[in-house]
């Protein structure tokens, strides 16, 4: 599940650890990087991603704020105006909503409204998605809101190595980045050497996680491992599926995605977010615009249902799983039907 080749000093690390390490290394390298959020200090965050940062860098660099998300992001704007690089933690996806006005009306627009004189290098970390048995308001997939907001970058890792590399790149970016962390991959593990971590990935490049020739699964974040599993299972049905991990929803890597679909001629977009109005529509539309005459079938979507996120005991029915992905692949008109 990771592209990093095993080195002598590697050992299993979780995605949460890799994210923490990325924060640490960014802070060590650049004194203008500040972490702020609810419970990011002594507790180390509810997912322990910021564990140890206050101990190492002090409360002024990694700060427990009052409980107010608009206030956190709003003060981060002011800090960035003064030359700092704030990294904001939102505790859960749905708790980023109070900060939407600051995000949409200021964070996304500040560079543009000041003709480039006032960039805001802010990273907003948002744990997102379901599959962890969380009660309501703890499992939203909110990426559609961020994608629809020009001025933001929207990045999401699916592997331990990318978690490190993409977070480093996001913090280093001179533009605001909404960094979406797939909750249910926090504890996913890969061999990884924290002392010589993976190189910093550039933002905006998708990657082919698994090459294949029959059809392309286009996906990101929490659905990447599911798609890889589906691709394995599909071999039994005689399908050789390619899996593209977008890694960045904005900017969107049209080139990599379109190249894959032109090769395979068929595509399914897979994500947890609700289907209607979700990222899949945009992705399917732009793939179709670019690959129309290569397509043997319409680009299909496998997504969460168009319902509020279910309670823990029912979430398995909502989340796109291997079977639902294979069902969609089966509907890609393998015999000529037109």
């Amino acid at each position: 599940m990771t592209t990093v080749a095993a080195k002598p000093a590697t050992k299993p690390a979780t995605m949460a650890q890799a994210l923490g390490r990325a924060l640490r290394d960014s802070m060590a390298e650049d004194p203008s990087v500040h972490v702020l959020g609810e419970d990011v200090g002594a507790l180390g965050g509810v997912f322990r991603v910021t564990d140890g940062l206050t101990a190492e860098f002090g409360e002024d660099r990694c700060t427990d704020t009052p409980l107010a998300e608009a206030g956190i992001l709003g003060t981060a704007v002011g800090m960035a105006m003064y030359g700092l690089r704030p990294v904001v933690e939102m505790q859960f996806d749905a708790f980023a909503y109070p900060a939407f006005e600051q995000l949409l009306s200021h964070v996304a627009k500040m560079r543009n409204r000041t003709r480039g004189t006032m960039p805001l290098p802010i990273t907003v970390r948002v744990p997102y998605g379901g599959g962890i048995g969380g009660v309501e308001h703890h499992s939203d997939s909110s990426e559609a809101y961020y994608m629809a907001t020009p001025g933001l970058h929207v990045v999401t890792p699916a592997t331990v190595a990318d978690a490190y590399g993409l977070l480093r790149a996001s913090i280093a970016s001179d533009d605001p980045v909404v960094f979406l962390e797939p909750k249910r991959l926090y504890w996913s593990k890969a061999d990884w050497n924290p002392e010589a971590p993976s190189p910093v990935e550039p933002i905006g490049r998708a990657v082919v996680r698994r090459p294949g020739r029959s059809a392309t699964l286009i996906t990101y974040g929490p659905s990447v491992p599911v798609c890889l599993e589906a691709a394995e299972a599909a071999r039994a049905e005689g399908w050789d599926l390619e899996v593209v991990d977008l890694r960045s929803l904005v900017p969107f890597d049209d080139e990599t995605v379109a190249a894959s679909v032109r090769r395979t001629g068929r595509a399914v977009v897979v994500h947890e977010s609700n289907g209607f109005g979700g990222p899949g529509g945009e992705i399917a539309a732009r793939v179709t615009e670019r690959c129309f005459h290569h397509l043997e079938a319409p680009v299909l979507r496998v997504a969460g249902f168009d319902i509020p996120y279910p309670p823990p005991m029912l979430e398995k029915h909502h989340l796109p799983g291997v079977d639902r992905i294979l069902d969609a692949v089966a509907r890609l008109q393998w015999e000529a039907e037109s």
Partner: protein
Amino acid sequence: MTVMEQRGAYRPTPPPAWQHRTDPAPLLPDPEPYRVLGTEAAAKADPGLLRRLYAELVRGRRYNTQATALTKQGRLAVYPSSTGQEACEVAAALALEERDWLFPSYRDTLAVVARGLDPAHALTLLRGDWHTGYDPREHRIAPLSTPLATQLPHAVGLAHAARLKGDGVVALAMVGDGGTSEGDFHEALNFAAVWQAPVVFLVQNNGFAISVPLAKQTAAPSLAHKAVGYGMPGRLVDGNDAAAMHEVLSEAVSRARRGGGPTLVEAVTYRMEAHTNADDATRYRHDAEVDAWRDHDPILLLEREMAERGLLDDDEKRRVGEDAEAMAADLRTRMNQDPVLDPMDLFSHVYAEQTTQLREQAAQLRAELEAASEEAGEEAR
């Protein structure tokens, strides 16, 4: 000498708009939290009320320990315990009449139970079979609110609607010290005061918002001091003193019912357990601090008072304990049964009428489930 008399030829008037709207003095809280137990005021407390409070506190404590135990057995997704805060929870429920409305936060399962809801139904959210386990209108209890402070404007709107109707209904809304930092807290209190809505805001200041101590949450003299900025009275109470809590909340409720407008009540209390069963409190606080509160336990305070007044004998204590045990045993039994769930419910309540899209999706899931059960059936054969 007034400003009018200060000068010779030129005597400006004050800005025309300037007139006091409200006298701030009565809105300011007393410097010390109000207490009844162990003070002279306790003598006036109704013995029946104290007995009732005692039984509810004991039952509440038992409920908390039972629910926490259920998390360990995997029967609850999560439980935020109110151990140590039972006086607040119980008093909030008991201060209300049946027609009134309660707006609990995610920690306030106990208030919901003390108000009379089936102890098992109160846990539906935390068990994970659905988001809310009761009909809010039937019980006049809003859903337990996870997004902090968002329930406060709801309480204000409902109280405002009740005032317009003139039916004497009051809303009581609960929030934590951390929740007071949210914009929704501010907006709710402001609307309430402008509209003179019959609503009582109860802040349980239990010292922490997960790991964040009060000193990082506010620099105010007290949270009750926020009230004057909205033009409503702020009251400061010892939140572990069930009699004081009941008295102050009851006063605020009847003031609201009389048309006197909203009140902000800050209860000073302490969260004895970790934030939830998933939390590790040793990361951010010392046992010594927790221990300092053990002697100020709400059950202990009430027990001592009642003992001193001869209101609690061993028989009564035993009986109360047994009732609480029976409630816990029943809860345990029922929570140990797997709930029967229908996945098709996912599509039943999104809209009054299912959209075409939801009908299609429901059909898809139904087909999947049928295929799966056929497969299971074949395997079984």
